[in-house]
């Protein structure tokens, strides 16, 4: 059972923010563009300079090397980047079940990156990230480019993963309907302060 404990986190003009995210739960976060949602996730993944404490179970973010932390606390950015020519080169192994659960068949492994749509990149980006089996998922507008059907597949897939690994997630998005559907707590980031909404 994993627990992400955020204590007095400050970055840029935001904070202090305190938040607890429990195992198998998704915390929803919305806010206007430029309100600092993405920066917040980046700070949690230690990709952005920040103050305050981020603790996973008993493990303080600053007590282990940054790359190990990012394997545990994994950020899926709104736009994923790909550097090899084909999909397969970005994966060590990938089960057909996982691919099918997100609406792909195994042929997609041979696809060239250049022909991927932004929605395909987001779904494959999730699979790529989950190879590290992270304890915390930080999802930055992960379904912004997906149609209704694939959005549902994505949501179910994330929920299933959290349940299987006792992991937890923070889901940043603009679609309040969706956030109500997937999350147990919802917050909004406004003028650097985070407040509960419902």
């Amino acid at each position: 059972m994993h627990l992400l404990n955020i204590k007095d986190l400050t970055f840029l003009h935001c904070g202090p923010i305190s938040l607890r995210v429990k195992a198998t739960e998704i915390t929803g976060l919305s806010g206007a563009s430029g309100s600092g949602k993405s920066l917040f996730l980046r700070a949690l993944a230690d990709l952005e300079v920040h103050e305050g404490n981020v603790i996973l179970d008993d493990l303080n973010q600053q007590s282990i090397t940054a790359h190990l932390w990012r394997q545990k606390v994994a950020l899926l950015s709104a736009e994923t980047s790909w550097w090899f020519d084909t999909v397969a080169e970005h994966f060590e192994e990938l089960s057909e079940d996982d691919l099918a659960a997100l609406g792909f068949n195994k042929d997609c492994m041979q696809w060239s990156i250049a022909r991927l749509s932004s929605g395909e990149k987001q779904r494959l980006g999730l699979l790529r990230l989950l190879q590290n089996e992270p304890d915390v998922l930080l999802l930055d507008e992960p379904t912004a480019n997906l149609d209704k059907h694939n959005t549902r597949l994505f949501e179910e897939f994330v929920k299933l993963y959290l349940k299987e690994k006792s992991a937890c997630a923070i889901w940043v998005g603009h679609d309040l309907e969706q956030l109500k559907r997937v999350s147990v707590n919802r917050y909004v980031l406004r003028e650097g302060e985070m407040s509960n909404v419902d």
Partner: protein
Amino acid sequence: MLIELSVFDLALAAILVLLLGVLSASMKLGITRQLYIAAARTTVQLLLVGLVLKSLFASTSITFILLISVIMISVAGWEILSRQKRKLKGWWGFGVSTGSLFVSSFLITLLCLFTVIQADPWYSPQYAIPLLGMLLGNTMTGIALGMDRLLQNAWQQRPVIEQRLMLGQTADESIADIRREAMRAGMIPIINSMAAAGLVSLPGMMTGQILAGAAPVEAVKYQILIMFMITSGTGLGVISVLWLISKRLFDERERLCFKQLLK
């Protein structure tokens, strides 16, 4: 048997450079200014050094020769920085480029003077200065190319580097491909020279010696020595630059951080 060049001969060659500049300007390739400045510099600098070379070689003061070396390295370091599209921060950048030149050229020249040439005294300027000059001239090119490629690619591929960090890769892993590319870019000129030597190009120093009456085999041996020194010097220089810069590209928490590197 040396055929003397007239002012007209030089003017003809100068006109070619001039035309190249005009062509580049009309195609908006943006190299004209740099080209003209470099052409003017080569003329003035070579004329001046040609005038003092004899008295320079006559000198036997070690302090004087060290001073000349320091000037040569500083100028080469400065030139490396001037060739960069992404400008490095002042003193740090200068330190990296001159430091790598020190390793790649100065130390290798010393090694060669002590173990191979063994002139008396070891700092005899007619060996030390041209040797250092040849090494600096060549390693400078390699280092400038490698550095430029590293900085340009790292800048353009920021999203990829960050993505790799998000996937839990170390700073080293996230930049490995870019570093490999930069190493290749830095080494291509000298690898080309070695591969083409004798078949495509006749190295200037060797040709000069033979024309001046030296035994061909002796001239060839010198040339091979120089080539190997340039190669190892360039390799060492590029490696140290890539190592220093890619370390500096990340902060202590393995975040990509151009702030501490670029102007």
